[in-house]
């Protein structure tokens, strides 16, 4: 177990363009100085890396084989808009869908960037996510083979959502892959991006180590959806970091509905005056899954606003972790920041660990936070049963109701439909119990 990092560092990366080679070299350098976190580190207290270490997820991924098998997993039901699909980390043109984009928009896999664009990327990549002590961010850079960029020029508005799918396929031996995204919106630009993580079929022993960066210019607006729908042997550890200039707005929608271990760290810096963000999320681990959201919203300028609303249901022997942090810097007067996290413990063997954190260095703020962990509501259960609904179905209805209040806030009808089906499959072990909701 102790040699995980050594193995990860020893990995030979395939040949790459010079700009990418330099990015990788920086990553390797940082990774050599870092160490793996343990449950003695506060940020990893409830989330053990054992599945990663014991599973020996070290090798690079294998070739995917015939792609037609994965076409269905690539579908999110989004009828319109471009789609970039990465199979085991590598861009796959056959499953992707190109649609005309306005002049001034670059949407491309890293592997297709020319020298000029590559050099531009090498300059900026990691600016919002410097590895520092984050060993996985460093390893992401070292393993980097492919990824996606979306650059939108000032004032442009993308009418259709952009679907980015990271698809894992079954591996002969446990493998790990780097996922990477950079979005840069110019002043006043607007876009919707869906980051979709999925695996095709069973036996997908893939560890996805992800970093996404979102740079929003003045008054830009990004709707960002990130959904984890992986299979039961998939691991995902990801960082999504955003920086917002004055008046910019980020609307983030997060769902964790699959994966043996899914850990997402969201870091939002409200850098400019009047920037705002809204983070909405839903996590439903079951069996022995562990889903972990760590958020940090930093108010660095006056009159910025943030709203975080997450909900979770932990079933079976699963564990949900939510750590929500609000950090108000000294000059950030007039800040408004609210955080609510509500959880249901499905049974006695499940576990929910929640921790809201407030750090406020300013008097002129409106802040609130609330976190609750509860069992099923007895009054609601009785009401449903008193109408003849069997208890097992009543729990499914109540779980759905609780989660659906968050899901209803997600954008894109097709996305909501897909997530609803996935949600119901999670809540109702016997599909009959969800038949009145389909």
């Amino acid at each position, binding site marked *: 177990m102790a040699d995980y990092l050594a193995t990860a560092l020893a990995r030979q990366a395939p040949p790459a363009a010079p700009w990418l080679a330099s990015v990788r070299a920086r990553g390797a350098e940082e990774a050599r100085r870092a160490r793996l976190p343990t449950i003695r580190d506060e940020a990893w207290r409830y989330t053990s890396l054992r599945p990663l270490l014991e599973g020996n997820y070290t090798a690079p991924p294998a070739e995917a084989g015939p792609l037609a098998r994965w076409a269905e997993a690539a579908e999110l039901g989004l009828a319109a808009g471009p789609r970039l699909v990465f199979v085991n980390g590598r861009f796959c043109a056959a499953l992707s869908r190109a649609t005309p984009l306005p002049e001034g928009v670059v949407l491309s896999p890293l592997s297709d960037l020319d020298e000029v664009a590559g050099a531009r990327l090498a300059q900026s990549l990691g600016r919002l996510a410097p590895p520092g002590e984050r060993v996985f961010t460093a390893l992401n850079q070292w393993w980097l083979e492919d990824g996606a960029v979306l650059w939108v020029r000032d004032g442009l508005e993308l009418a259709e959502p952009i679907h980015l799918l990271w698809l894992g396929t079954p591996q002969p031996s446990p493998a790990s892959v780097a996922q990477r995204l950079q979005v840069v919106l110019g002043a006043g630009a607007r876009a919707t991006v869906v980051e979709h993580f999925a695996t095709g079929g069973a036996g997908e022993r893939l560890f996805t180590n992800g970093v996404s960066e979102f740079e929003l210019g003045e008054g830009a607006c990004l709707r960002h959806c990130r959904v984890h729908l992986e299979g039961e042997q998939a691991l995902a550890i990801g960082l999504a970091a955003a920086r917002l200039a004055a008046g910019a707005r980020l609307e983030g929608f997060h769902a964790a509905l699959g994966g043996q271990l899914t850990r997402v760290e969201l870091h939002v810096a409200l850098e400019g005056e009047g920037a705002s963000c809204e983070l909405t999320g839903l996590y439903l681990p079951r069996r022995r899954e562990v889903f972990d959201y760590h958020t940090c919203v930093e108010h660095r300028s006056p009159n910025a606003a943030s709203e975080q609303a997450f909900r979770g249901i932990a079933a079976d022997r699963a564990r949900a972790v939510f750590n929500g942090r609000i950090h108000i810097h000294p000059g950030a007067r007039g800040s408004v920041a609210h955080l609510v996290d509500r959880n249901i413990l499905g049974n006695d063997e499940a576990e929910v660990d929640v921790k809201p954190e407030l750090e406020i260095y300013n008097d002129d703020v409106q802040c609130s936070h609330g976190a609750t962990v509860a069992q099923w509501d*007895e*009054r*609601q259960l*009785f*009401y*449903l*049963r*008193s*109408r*003849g*609904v*069997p*208890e097992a*179905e009543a729990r499914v*209805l*109540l779980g*759905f*109701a*609780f*989660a*659906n*209040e968050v899901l*209803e806030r997600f954008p894109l009808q097709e996305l909501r439909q897909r997530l609803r089906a996935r949600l119901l499959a999670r809540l109702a072990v016997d599909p009959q119990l969800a038949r*009145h*909701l389909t």
Partner: protein
Amino acid sequence: MLSIHDLEVRIADQERPILKGLDLEVGAGEVHAIMGPNGSGKSTLGYVLAGRDGYQVTRGSVRFRGRDLLAMDVETRAREGLFLAFQYPVEIPGLSNLEFLKAAVDAVREYRGEPPLDSAALLRRAREACAALRLDPGFLKRGVNEGFSGGEKKRNEILQMMLLEPRLCILDEIDSGLDIDALQVVADGVNALRSPDRSFVLITHYQRLLEYVRPDRVHVLSGGRIVRSGGAELALELEERGYGWLEEEVA
């Protein structure tokens, strides 16, 4: 239909019983009103019959359509045809009224050996019921009782009753918080459901409801017991004289 004999009930872990030997016979097709002062045990009676947790039956028996009601779980009581209209209907945001109705109607029909209603048929019936109760059909898409006004909540109880077609309807203060127009609508709904094989127990504090739904029998519940029974005229007497004289008589 319903036969309650010497029923003694306490709230779990409390010494003092709330119902202290209650007797009640409700025949098929009859409408009974149970009146009484606050704290007399009226709502407890409704909850115990519906099977809510937290109440302990320490004596007595309840037979419903010839079977031991107290031995049945909550959902079986409902499927056997017992319906409790809640004094305070429970909100379930995120679950639509229609989804809720589907689940309930299906469960009850399946138990009765009836084929399931397809979505279109259920929707048609639900819309008809909405029209009868003067509810906007958009009502079916809203979360169960979520943000409903007091009157809407009560009408939603009647709506469920109309679709579930129970044998015994226990209405717990269905009249509380209703203005005259809403009371008329609710009462019309109840009257439309009256039939020779369906019985009603109206739990109420006031005589007003009984002007709209005429009872066959009126009982006064006080101190956990039925202390007086009579015809519809008893309700008028209570309206004039209050409950005090009965409590004194009993004492």
